[in-house]
């Protein structure tokens, strides 16, 4: 409360100070489709100061009254310059056109984009959907999650694995937000494709470090995905037929320039094609996955805008009408942008997010097993941005998040007798208030600092479990006591201050140094003890036994641009991250349908450090980027690896990736993607012994991840053939279409995913001499060509 009061006083004093100044504010949109432009630059040439448009395209800049020249810039768009005689507050809503689009406004050549050098934010990477679409992809399916894996500091356990790992964080330590709602499982088909429909995605931002105080809840990174608002100028359709998905997206104005919508759907269609040729899909069997993204917005008036967006996706695998497995996410986000004044921008977000899965087995109603699980969120997030003056932008807000966990609702029926083996539901309330300021001191020093105060309460009704902690670490702790709490009672509560700080110092026009520190706290935990995370993994709240995960990261970086138009960006960043209360598992942990799960978990510490190099060429016929990461990620858990540090399964010493785009003609584009990644760690046995005719591997010294599998390298290429722009009769075609031909794993390498040890399948008559072998597995062990057809009109 005191904190809030301090914020209020601060805010109030600033308001008083700034009385005589005047403000220019407004929204910046795309001239062609009315989409708001996120991160467009508003630059005052006279004062050499500026600001960026926010997530909703809003900007505000406060100045002394006077005459100014204002430039509006956005990469790939024509710059607009306005001369403004500022005597009173002025609202300027603006539309920028893509380069090449004719505009009535005065146009100058685009000023060099140097935000990577001049911006205070480090360890942050933006990928626009155009770049994502151009990257060669597996089976030609454009994939948001796979594309961010081309960036420095991002790794995975291997091909086909769901999620991603940032700067040594596990999959569950990255927060994936779709229009501000968390998405708990970002994969279709167990990890081969991501759940985001590229036709509906506008902007993707990955924040790996120097995380602003407005974000919280996970300790490694934030992946902030924003959906398109829908074309507010004219009806537009896009879609395509790929190897896996068929896609269709419709967008249109509801009221021109005031309200619009987009609806985008995708579905796998292999089952539909296969149906005439197989009886697999008779008797109610289903094999498909799909997603649907809907968004609409309404500009009520100059001061109010409303947005409503939703996502619905599901993977369905059924043997017959009664038996099978399905999972999916649902999110709904409602937002209200309100301008309290030209300088005080507010956004109120309500969201709902749900992830669930269900399994059913059984011959008939007398012998069945039905099992489902879900995690649900309901949240309210107010946020205010106060544009005090060109030197200060204050952001403050809060978050109230209700978590509901149903780890397992499971009922078994055996010969007509039914048993409920469900584990109890859990609920929790996560609250946060935060304040942050973006401050410029002189022309060289920029600061971004803030603090987030978070509180987490595990609420009844529910149980508090106590375990026998005298058991040697690494073994199951038996339950010793259960205390039951009533509805609404607090079972356990945690509070934390999370300071955040970033600094930029401009060395000269083309280079800067940056540094940052952030503390992140994570109160809910992904429970997964398999190599890759899978759809059955559950999330569990912090309890008296599971402490919140804490992550502290420091990073420093040097940023420099080259070339006449600053079109070559380079950066080097060093980071060190220390984490506490990471979760690992006892051997043989029972993580599904287990009331006493907490007795199978082991807390530990983590450390991750590394160097990231990034080089990007923005323009020219040949452009692209190169990422290199030198890194180490280790855990220390009592009860594993003799309590010594051991590398995580996704620890990659060298991670080198090149993504190149070549656009020689109007009709042909080419792209290529090359990765070279050091082998990931795994555990090899030394010894075998036999018990009851089973040959059991044994690791002398009881190490974990003591060897590395061979290095990984792969080349993918793609070519895009654009349809003719002009018809035979000379008329310009209204619709655009293009073919994408892609080849994944061009030189057909069997890249190792893992090496496993097992007894051979054949059991000889003399069981004593059972042969043992080592097997190397390649998940995508061959060249995979694909073709897709896409259209837009």
């Amino acid at each position, binding site marked *: 409360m005191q904190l809030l009061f301090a914020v209020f006083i601060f805010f109030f004093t600033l308001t008083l100070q700034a009385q005589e100044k005047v403000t220019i504010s407004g929204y910046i949109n795309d001239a062609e489709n009315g989409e708001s432009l996120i991160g467009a630059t508003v630059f005052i040439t006279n004062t050499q100061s500026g600001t960026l448009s926010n997530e909703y395209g809003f900007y505000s800049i406060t100045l002394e009254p006077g005459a100014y020249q204002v430039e509006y810039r956005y990469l790939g768009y024509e710059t607009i310059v306005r001369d403004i005689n500022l005597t009173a507050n002025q609202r300027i809503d603006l539309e920028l056109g893509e380069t090449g689009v004719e505009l009535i406004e005065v146009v100058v050549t685009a000023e060099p984009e140097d935000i990577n050098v001049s911006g205070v934010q480090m360890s942050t990477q933006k990928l626009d959907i155009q770049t994502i679409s151009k990257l060669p992809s597996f089976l030609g399916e454009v994939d948001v999650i796979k594309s961010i894996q081309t960036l420095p500091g991002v790794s995975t356990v291997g091909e086909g694995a769901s999620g991603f790992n940032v700067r040594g964080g596990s999959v569950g330590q990255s927060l994936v937000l779709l229009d501000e709602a968390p998405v708990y499982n970002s994969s279709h088909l167990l990890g081969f494709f991501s759940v985001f429909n590229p036709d509906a995605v506008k902007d993707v931002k990955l924040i790996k470090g120097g995380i602003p105080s407005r974000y919280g809840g996970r300790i490694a990174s934030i992946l902030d995905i924003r959906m398109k608002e829908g074309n507010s100028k004219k009806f537009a359709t896009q879609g395509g037929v790929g190897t896996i998905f068929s896609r269709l997206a419709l967008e249109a104005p509801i009221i021109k320039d005031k309200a619009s919508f987009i609806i985008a759907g995708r579905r796998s269609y292999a089952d539909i094609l296969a149906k005439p040729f197989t009886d697999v899909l008779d008797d109610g069997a289903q*094999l498909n996955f799909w997603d649907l993204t809907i968004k609409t917005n309404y500009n009520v008036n100059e001061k109010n805008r409303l947005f409503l967006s939703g996502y619905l996706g599901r993977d369905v695998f059924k043997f017959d009408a009664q038996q099978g497995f399905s999972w999916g996410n649902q999110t709904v986000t409602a937002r209200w942008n309100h301008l309290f004044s030209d300088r005080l921008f507010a956004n109120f977000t309500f969201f709902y997010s749900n992830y669930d899965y269900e399994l059913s087995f059984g011959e008939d109603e007398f012998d069945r097993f039905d099992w489902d699980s879900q995690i649900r969120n309901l949240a309210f997030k107010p946020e205010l941005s106060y544009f005090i003056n060109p030197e200060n932008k204050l952001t403050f807000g809060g978050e109230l998040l209700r978590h509901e966990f149903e780890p397992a609702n499971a009922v078994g029926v055996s010969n007509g007798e039914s048993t409920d083996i469900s584990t109890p539901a859990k609920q929790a309330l996560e609250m946060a208030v935060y304040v942050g300021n973006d401050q410029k001191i002189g022309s060289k020093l920029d600061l971004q600092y803030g603090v987030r105060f978070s509180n987490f309460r595990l609420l009844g009704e529910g149980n508090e479990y106590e375990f026998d902690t005298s058991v040697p670490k690494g073994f199951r702790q038996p339950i010793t006591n259960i205390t039951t709490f009533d509805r609404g009672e607090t079972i356990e509560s945690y509070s934390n201050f999370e300071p955040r700080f970033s600094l930029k110092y401009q060395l000269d026009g083309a280079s800067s140094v940056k540094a940052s520190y952030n503390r992140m706290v994570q109160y809910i935990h992904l429970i997964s003890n398999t190599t890759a995370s899978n759809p059955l993994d559950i999330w569990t709240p912090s309890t008296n036994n599971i402490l919140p995960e804490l992550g502290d990261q420091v990073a420093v970086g040097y940023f420099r641009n080259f070339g006449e138009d600053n079109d070559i960006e380079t950066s080097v960043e060093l980071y060190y991250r220390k984490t506490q209360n990471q979760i690992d598992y006892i*051997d043989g942990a029972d993580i599904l349908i287990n009331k006493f799960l907490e007795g199978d978990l082991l807390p530990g510490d983590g450390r991750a450090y590394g160097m990231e190099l990034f080089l990007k060429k923005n323009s020219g016929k040949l452009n692209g980027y190169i990422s290199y990461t030198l890194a180490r990620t280790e855990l220390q858990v009592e009860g594993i690896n003799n309590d010594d540090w051991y590398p995580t399964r996704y620890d990659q010493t060298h991670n080198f990736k090149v993504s190149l785009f070549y656009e020689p003609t109007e009709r042909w584009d080419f792209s290529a993607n090359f990765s070279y990644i050091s082998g990931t760690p795994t555990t090899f046995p030394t010894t075998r012994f036999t018990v009851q005719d089973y040959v059991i591997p044994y690791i002398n010294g009881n190490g974990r991840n003591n060897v590395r599998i061979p290095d990984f390298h792969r080349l993918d290429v793609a070519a895009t053939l654009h349809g003719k722009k002009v018809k035979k009769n000379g008329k310009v075609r209204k619709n655009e279409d293009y073919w994408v031909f892609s080849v994944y794993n061009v030189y057909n390498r069997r890249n190792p995913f893992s090496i496993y040890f097992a007894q051979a399948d054949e059991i000889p008559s003399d069981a004593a*001499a059972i042969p043992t072998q*080592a097997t190397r597995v390649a*998940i995508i062990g061959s060249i995979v060509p694909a073709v897709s057809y896409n259209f837009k009109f």
Partner: protein
Amino acid sequence: MKNIILFISALVIIFFVSTSCEDDISSEVRLETSPELVVIDAWINNKPEPQTIQVNASQSYFDNSGLIGLSGAEVVVLDESGKQYLFEEGEQGAYIWTPTAGETFGTVGQNYALAVTYNGVTYGSVSSMNRVPPIDSITFRFEEANAFLEDSYFAEFWARDPVGAGDSYWVKTWKNEEYLGAPDQINIAFDAGFSQGGAVDGLIFIPPIRDAINPFEDEDGTFLSPYAVGDSIYVELHAIPNEAAFFLNEVRLQTDRPGGFGELFASPLSNVPTNIVASDGETEVLGFFTVSAVSSLGRRFE
């Protein structure tokens, strides 16, 4: 449960993208060397037959030359009353206790201690003989062919777990007198269900467990009928202590590696536990000691 999920996952992925592949690289892999350890494989039961405890040496992982039996050990099992069962050395590390006519090993409800002395070190452990319910019947069920299966006969065994949580079982099956001993055929039950926390108690064994006595062999992607007319089946239900069930669960995790796409969801390789300790408190020893009461039933499919 995990097996079923892996099975579904594999099917699903094969349906969409069949690109995974495996290579035997045993000849390329270099493993670290390790010292030879004593291995005690002591699973004895109350069947009316000689009981064997195997004392072996561990081997390097790729050594396929057969067991290395250790000779000269003293092997004895004691019950609560102090009665000694002496296991006499046979061939190749086998130590055997032979019952007299009509005698069986042990009594349900009693605790037993194992003592193996080898090279001056004594290795000890304890176990208990728990209650076992009878197997009431074995039935065969017909299922029509579908995409994954030809016309098939599945066997099921019927037994009811006694009321009271904490029982655990190892279900062992023989088809045509051949033991179904592959790692993925390890069939464990906690009470009548899957896991201890699950608390399925006092029921007829649930379907996945009573069904897991069917061997699956596939031919060109279609599973063959587990049983055909004329086949025989023999099922043994071993009541084992909880820790022995955990041990077997771990053995299954460490030996039944799914391979292929299943590797995405594999657990890390780790050492299985042992319930045997050395008297000097430091010598490492491998293996497990379990005493079980057994019920059994056989049937020929006609």
